[in-house]
């Protein structure tokens, strides 16, 4: 038996396939040309020939911002026909995901807090024309027709805004009371779902959506229920990619699943950080915890590169480091949990490590001490990540249920780890081709 035949016989190796490379793309300069049917958005290309192409380059890209783009163009057409009062405000309003709330709530908070209590519709109507300025700001975002339509719309909007603020205040107070009275639930790993949803995710979402402009592909590859082991590449000096992956899964997955990260013990050694990590659902990276989480049907996130990955130099970017001992594979095999490789592009550029001050790191007990273009020089300002463009792709899951008895076979474990590694590396290259410019929009 030749070595190749022996290799093919091994379980986990026969199924191994490199991901098929994407079909060649026609490019216009450095930007891919969208292959969308021309009928859908000719207006977009006419009105702003360059901008929307960057937003929606190809097939899956379209899921990120097509609604806002279409919204903008349709609104523009409608308004430019009759009242070209301010195209800037229209586009500005259309850019924001929730354009109406911001202006409306100001108006409402200022002058009609009482309207909700009174509920006097006939009285509110006649008052409306007094404030044409505020009306246009509030209404023009969706003003498609006559002024009167906009009036009645915005009147409803104000009523709603008062209700919304009432509800928000009440919700906020109830949340505060629950926190202060301790009547929330924490699971055995210290995961506090309420705190995570109410505080951590909204904060991370700002980074995720507005700062890194993250695009997510293949989220349907993540199982909707039951356990799963999400294995990613690690980069970016501090483990922001893990947090962004958590946010991506929570925001984009139809089941809004929580990712339970496995963290290095350094994280759990530091006071304060350890409890934040636990409350956000992380736990120490060890096989008992990973297996317990997976058997209880949780989605576990692991970065086998560890500090080797996040502490690598900028010149090594997007080169996967060694995958440790493959402990994550044996944990998945023992529980029969599918492995979902995930490639994260963008984290390498947020803090490009130019040098590593090893003696200082040893002095401080850190795995590395990074020198980035900004970090020690600008002090705290250097902690602001560079706004790179992020892309996250979930690869098809690798089933392991049929390999449960091989959990202690180092060859199978190593093969599978290698397969996961190759998949991530190939997907990274594919994503990098999609993103020619690290700081693209």
């Amino acid at each position, binding site marked *: 038996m030749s070595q190749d035949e022996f290799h093919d016989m091994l379980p986990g190796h026969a199924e191994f396939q490199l991901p098929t490379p994407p079909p060649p793309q026609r490019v216009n300069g450095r930007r891919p040309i969208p292959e969308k049917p021309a009928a859908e958005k000719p207006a977009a290309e006419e009105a702003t020939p360059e901008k929307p192409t960057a937003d929606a380059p190809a097939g899956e890209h379209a899921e990120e911002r097509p609604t806002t783009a279409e919204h903008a163009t349709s609104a523009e057409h409608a308004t430019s026909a009759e009242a070209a009062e301010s195209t800037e405000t229209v586009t500005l309003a259309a850019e924001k995901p929730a354009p109406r709330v911001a202006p409306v709530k100001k108006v409402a908070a200022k002058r009609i*807090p009482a309207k909700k*209590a009174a509920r006097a519709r006939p009285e509110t109507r006649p008052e409306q024309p007094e404030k044409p300025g505020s009306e246009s700001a509030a209404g023009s975002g969706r003003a498609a027709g006559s002024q009167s339509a906009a009036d009645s719309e915005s009147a409803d909007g104000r009523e709603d805004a008062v209700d919304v603020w009432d509800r928000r205040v*009440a919700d906020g107070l109830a949340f505060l009371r629950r926190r*202060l009275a301790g009547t929330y639930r924490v699971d*055995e790993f210290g995961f506090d779902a309420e705190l995570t949803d109410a505080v951590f995710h909204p904060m991370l979402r700002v980074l995720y959506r507005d700062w890194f402009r993250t695009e997510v592909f293949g989220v349907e590859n993540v199982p909707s229920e039951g356990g799963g082991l999400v294995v990613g590449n690690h980069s970016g000096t501090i483990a922001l990619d893990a947090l962004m992956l958590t946010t991506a899964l929570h925001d984009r997955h139809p089941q809004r699943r929580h990712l339970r990260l496995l963290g290095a013990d350094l994280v759990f050694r530091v006071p304060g950080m*350890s409890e934040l990590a636990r409350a956000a659902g992380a736990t120490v990276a060890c096989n008992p915890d990973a297996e317990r989480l997976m058997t209880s049907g949780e989605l576990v996130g692991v970065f086998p590169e560890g500090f080797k990955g996040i502490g690598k130099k900028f010149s090594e970017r997007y080169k996967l480091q060694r995958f440790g001992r493959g402990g994550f594979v044996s944990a998945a095999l023992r529980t029969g949990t599918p492995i979902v490789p995930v490639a994260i592009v963008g984290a390498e550029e947020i803090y490009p490590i130019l040098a590593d001050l090893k003696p200082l790191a040893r002095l401080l007990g850190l795995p590395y001490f990074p020198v980035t273009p900004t970090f020690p020089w600008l002090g705290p300002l250097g902690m602001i990540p560079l706004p790179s463009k992020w892309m996250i792709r979930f690869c098809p899951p690798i089933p392991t249920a049929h390999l449960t008895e091989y959990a202690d076979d180092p060859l199978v474990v190593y093969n599978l780890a290698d397969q996961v590694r190759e998949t991530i590396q190939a997907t990274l290259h594919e994503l990098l081709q999609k993103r020619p410019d690290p700081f693209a929009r």
Partner: protein
Amino acid sequence: MVTSPPSVVVVTGVSRYLGARVAARLAADPRIERVVGLDPHDPPARLLGLLDGVERIRADARAATEAIAGLGAEAVVHLAVTSVPDAEHGGRAAMKEQNVIGTMQVLAAAQGAPGLRKLVVRSSTAAYGASFRDPAVFTEDTEPRAVPRGPFARDILDIEGYVRGFRRRRPEVAATVLRFAPMISSSAETSLTRYFAQPVVPTVLGRDARMQFVHVEDALEVLHRSVTEEHPGTFNVAGAGVLTLSQAVRRAGRIALPLPESALSTGAALLRNLGVEQIGLDQIDLFVHGRVVDTTRLIREFGFTPRGTETAFQEFIEAHVAGSSLTADRLAAAESAILDGVRRVRAAAEASLAGSDRP
């Protein structure tokens, strides 16, 4: 596996709350003929009433030989394991004497007793030690990563080591080791319940330990079952669910005072030396690392589910309302007061707006 209950049972540590309760409960069981309590100290007056049906031998563990072999004991329940040094009875030295040497002597006597069928030893979840690299949930098979620094935890490791030796030498005796989470109930008084009963509770800055409790009644039930039935092995005994320390403090309506760990250790050492309160390194370790155990094996083997940690703690809170300041009721009242205030301000604003619009 259920066999006939033993007819003669020796219980050590009956001068303490748990020992007295277990002895009384065993004495009340009609299937058990004789219950002998072995303790070097006299029980306090409030426990004496419990010990009516119990024969007491006032002697230390050296007398265990005659008690166990001489009385023909069929079961030994070893509960003379103290978690906190008792200043009245000799402090840490006496605690170690009782925990380690006492266990050695009891086990030596048990080894020499031909009629012995059962051995039940009280242990603690402190046996898992405390380390940053510990898994979040301990099963019975988890080994401690390092020798813990707390004296009680070290004693527990020694005790369990002796029981392992005993099992090797007397494999036909069903040896049950019960690792209890901190016990709590409306009436029991331990250093932990005293800690939670303070109006301001010091905690560790930057740490929020995950805690589990077991209700004393459930602990008694498990102990009773392990005497009357046969459940050899090691079992975690804890209530399902988890409370973090800050959450527990908030639920108790107390105010947490986070202190850096070093300050807390120093303060505890000072209090210990002054003899005011005995907060040991064990407890500080618990507050830093937390401790959660898996009770699947207990539930499967004993067919008994202890009440949850939250339920047990709630019972404790209800018995200790005095001294609480930030109770749930007051918070709810404050919340509705703020909401009322918002509504009132809005009504006033509406009225003034209507007034200014009219003319």
